[in-house]
């Protein structure tokens, strides 16, 4: 008797959610004809629990620079864990109940889906009408457009470049210069390893810090359009010149340069290993400056941390001044609720967020910094200079991938460097996920 029941029951969560979602879809479809452009009563903002910077900065602005906008339309922040963000957005979008401002999904693919169905405001048009389009850094705008199919679909609450942070003290002690080419980087790693220092630290649990190295190698060897060609179907990850990149990164793992058990290292552990001087190099985005500038976390001292671009590959088509850049978790505004009061908030944010975030959190955004802020340390200055001088932006490995290919790539990355997955097999698996539709 109780034989079949539990079986059905296991299925129930998915069935039930799917049922509820479709029921919601049905109701909205029925009620859709009435038109639902009701003016928002508050500046609701859906964010992820992990990101505290935007939330805190907006809250402090609501009592300061944006007080007037806040009185007309009070800020209300709601958060969900990042892992359940996509699911939440799908449900809210299905019910036509998206907040005024929201984190627009973990991958650009979802944001574009929302935009195609008319849920996302045309930010370029709105910002130009508000006369604040020039408050956005041109570099940030071009990064967003490269990510979101040529449209400005999110606001640059963060603007990051990525590269390798290194421990200057450990480099000095081992008689090393900043490596400018891939071969120099590999020999520096060998020297560090011989000197009893773990050359790299990376979170294999997150996976992306490892796949970033693959894309780094690809951009340097094949040029800045290497992954665009894959996305457009002009090249395949299984082509020998692409597999070569995976082989190089797997080689670092084979020699033990990432330390033991890289698959179990989480984001915070990797960060701690670097900030405690246990590893010499750490591939990361400029958002790590917040941790580097924090004396409580950084035991090696900010003065001992340097930043270098991903090194050049000899004979490669890419240049060392092309940096991978991103705008963090995309944050956008709903089309439905974009009215005058929301516009007041948005123009206030574009004018003031840049300096507030830099001053309070050491976080670099893609908004102009209108009140000059003193940099906390040299490495911050160096990164800001890099951002303003960067000649051309490139995107990261998974930037143009589907959600499925992104997950497949990031969950298999640790296997690539621990040797449980051959480079060809890794590239094949990711390519399969890309072409599966």
């Amino acid at each position, binding site marked *: 008797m109780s034989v079949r029941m539990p079986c059905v029951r296991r*299925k129930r969560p998915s069935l039930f959610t799917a049922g509820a979602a479709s029921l919601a879809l049905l109701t909205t479809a029925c009620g859709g004809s009435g038109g639902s452009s009701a003016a928002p009563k508050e500046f609701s903002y859906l964010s992820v629990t992990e990101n505290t910077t935007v939330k805190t900065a907006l809250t402090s602005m609501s009592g300061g620079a944006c007080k007037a906008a806040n009185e007309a339309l009070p800020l209300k922040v709601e958060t969900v864990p990042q892992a359940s963000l996509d699911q939440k957005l799908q449900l809210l979008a299905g019910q036509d109940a998206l907040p005024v401002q929201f984190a627009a999904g973990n991958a650009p693919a979802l944001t574009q889906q929302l935009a195609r169905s008319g849920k996302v405001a045309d930010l370029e048009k709105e910002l130009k009408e508000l006369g604040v389009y020039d408050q956005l850094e041109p570099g940030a705008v071009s990064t967003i457009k490269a990510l979101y199919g040529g449209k400005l679909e999110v606001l640059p609450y963060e603007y990051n470049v990525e590269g390798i942070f290194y421990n200057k003290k450990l480099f000095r002690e081992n008689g090393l210069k900043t490596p400018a080419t891939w071969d120099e980087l590999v020999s520096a790693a060998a020297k560090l390893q011989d000197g009893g220092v773990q050359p790299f630290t990376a979170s294999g649990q997150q996976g992306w810090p490892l796949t970033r190295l693959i894309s780094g190698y690809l951009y340097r060897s094949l040029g800045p359009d290497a992954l665009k060609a894959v996305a457009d179907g002009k090249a395949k990850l299984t082509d020998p010149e692409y597999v070569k990149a995976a082989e190089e990164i797997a080689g670092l793992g084979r020699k033990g340069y990432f330390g033991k058990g890289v698959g179990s290292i989480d984001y915070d552990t990797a960060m701690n290993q670097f900030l405690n001087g246990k590893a010499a190099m750490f591939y990361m985005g400029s958002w790590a400056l917040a941790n580097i500038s924090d004396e409580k976390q950084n035991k090696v001292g900010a003065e001992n941390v340097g930043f270098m671009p991903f090194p050049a590959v000899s004979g490669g088509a890419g240049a060392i001044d092309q940096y991978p850049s991103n705008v963090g978790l995309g944050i956008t505004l709903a089309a439905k609720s974009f009215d005058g009061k929301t516009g007041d908030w948005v123009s206030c944010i574009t004018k003031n967020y840049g300096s507030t975030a830099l001053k309070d959190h050491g976080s670099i955004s893609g908004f102009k910094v209108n009140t000059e802020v003193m940099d906390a340390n040299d490495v911050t200055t160096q990164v800001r200079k890099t951002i303003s001088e960067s000649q051309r932006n490139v995107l990261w490995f998974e930037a143009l991938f589907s959600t499925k290919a992104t997950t497949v790539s990031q969950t*298999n990355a*640790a296997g690539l460097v621990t040797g449980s997955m051959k480079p060809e097999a890794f590239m094949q698996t990711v390519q399969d996920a890309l072409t599966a539709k």
Partner: protein
Amino acid sequence: MHRVLGDRRAIAILLGPALLVYSLIMLVPIVWSLGYSFTQGNTIEGFTGNGGANFSRLFDDPAVRDALWFTLRYAALVTVGQIVAGYLLALLYVFFLKKSSGLIRTLAFFPVVLPTVAVGLLFQKFFQVAPQTGPVNSLLNAVGLDSIDFFGSAGSAFWVLILMDIWRSMGFYAVLLFAGLVDIPDEVLESARLDGASGLRLIRHIVLPLSLPVLMSSLIFSINGTLKVFDSVVALTNGGPGSGTTPLTLYMFQTSFTYSDYGYGSTIALLLTVVCLLVSLAVYRVSRRDLSES
């Protein structure tokens, strides 16, 4: 009473509400999900019919094959492990510890009470190699062996998962089977002993046949639970490394909610239902035959 139950309207009024609720929250979503199997899309973009494409994809998808194989292997091993370990514990309680088994019973039952996530974290720390060397690897090092990155390959992660789930649930099956063993009449055991049966022979010829019904219900419980394993995998390995420890349930969840492909997710769910149904029917059939024999 008989008059009330003889009245059709009364039956309708009594059963109606429950039936309605049941239909709304169970039957409708099941049928709905079945319908989704023939579509592609999600709640943002809407759903479009795509005929039997999901089903042909199901048969071609190597990930489904891997997940199904993993699920079956996992279910078989954990079911056997749970029941054997539980049965041995129950025998220990009844024949060896006798009246003083209370403390051991409580200790063995303790993991059942713990939340799965806590057990998952515990085993992660237990078997970890980095950032700190865990107790198991320390032990290996102490006897002169190299550390093993247990979660670095699908093979070793699988065995840690099996071990964890047997440890986690053997106390439950021990109590279940204990209840069955206690029910065996003392006179039967007594007379068997007088006839010269002792030790293994007593268990083989008297205890095992007499506790077969409760063993069978444990088997049904266990196989149904393990085919649908989800929480312990998510807590321990989250399906990794790569997709090395991904069961059908997790693949279904990822497909529907992470890759927002509700249609294909429903198709995988259907496959899981069919597998559950077949296995349950098989076990049910075997158990019925055995019960009638005994």
